[in-house]
């Protein structure tokens, strides 16, 4: 079982998102992935969070639509992820 040390998390206002993808590239640990098939009510894809967030708030600072609320855990958490999962996939380029 693989775990990923996670220092922070975000709340994502999916309805506010306009699918611009800036957060995906801006996230240093690359833990944001855009949805593939799911769309919000406005018809845009929106970001989802993987394990490994550091609470650095790069996403909230780069987002033009104020989609993110960023938290930093008092104590880092180890989150279980499946063995067959690659934590840095889904950056949207492929």
């Amino acid at each position, binding site marked *: 079982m693989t775990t990923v040390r996670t220092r*922070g*998390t*975000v*709340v*994502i*206002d*999916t309805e*506010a998102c*306009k*699918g*611009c*993808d*800036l957060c*995906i*590239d*801006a996230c*240093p640990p690359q833990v944001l*992935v855009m*949805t*593939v098939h799911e769309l919000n009510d406005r018809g*845009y894809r929106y970001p*989802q*969070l*993987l*394990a490994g967030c550091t*609470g*650095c*708030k*790069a*996403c*909230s*600072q*780069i*987002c*033009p*639509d*104020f*989609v*993110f*609320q*960023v*938290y*930093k*855990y*008092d*104590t880092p*958490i180890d*989150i*279980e*992820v*499946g063995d*067959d*999962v690659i*934590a840095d*996939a*889904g950056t*949207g380029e*492929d």
Partner: protein
Amino acid sequence: MTNELLRILPTDAPPTEPARLVDDFTPALIDVGAHNLCPGCGEPIAMRSVMEVIAEKGLIQKAIAVFGIGCYTAFSNNLDCEVLQALHGRAPSLATGVKRARPDTIAVTIQGDGDMVNEGLQEVVHAAARGEKITCILLNNGVFGETGGHMTATTTLGQRTKNTLDGRNAADHGYPIQMASLLAGLEGSAYVARGAVNTAGNVSRTKRMIEKAIEVQQQGLGFSFVEILTMCPTGWFIETQEAPEYLDDTIAAVHSGGVLKDITSTPT
């Protein structure tokens, strides 16, 4: 790769584990978060930084934001900050009137490159030459965004716009004006800097420039100016996620970042 293979964490509510909030949704002083600017637009990012600086410095009951006309005018009626709307290019003279009549206010202009460098070039140059104790913020995306993406005085050579579809060329269209560089050469300018909002790192650096510019106004040292390069994927005819790199390669290559003048810094 589909996301079904990844462990997606819940992000619809604050965490139950003990945590502190480090960044909130709608920035301080922006009443209504939803705006109709294009996906990937850099202007809301810059507006956020300006408003955060005003809030963090406790200046909200002194600040009067003087807006020019452009896409960013969308923010002129949803800020919890007093706003004076100017005509295209005219914000510096209005801000001058505000500051001279009420010297205890903090007067900040928000203008785009079409507004400031085309229509209002003489206004900002005269305000800087006068050492007017105001802060002018230039949101520079190299196009007239609101009217559909046409060439401005800051459009770089080779940049494609609606009326330079083969790319700006010097023979037909002349050369771009580097606004911050021009103003840094005037004696009345006390602080002149150029930043960008295409990466999180640049957003932080630019926010520090805005802080410094406001401090210069608070100390009454003269004219302060921050040019902020913003993304305009619509006006650049590119995908939103290509815009940060395009900004670096096309815009920032000509309008280069950094602090161009700071009369408060001692030479090393």
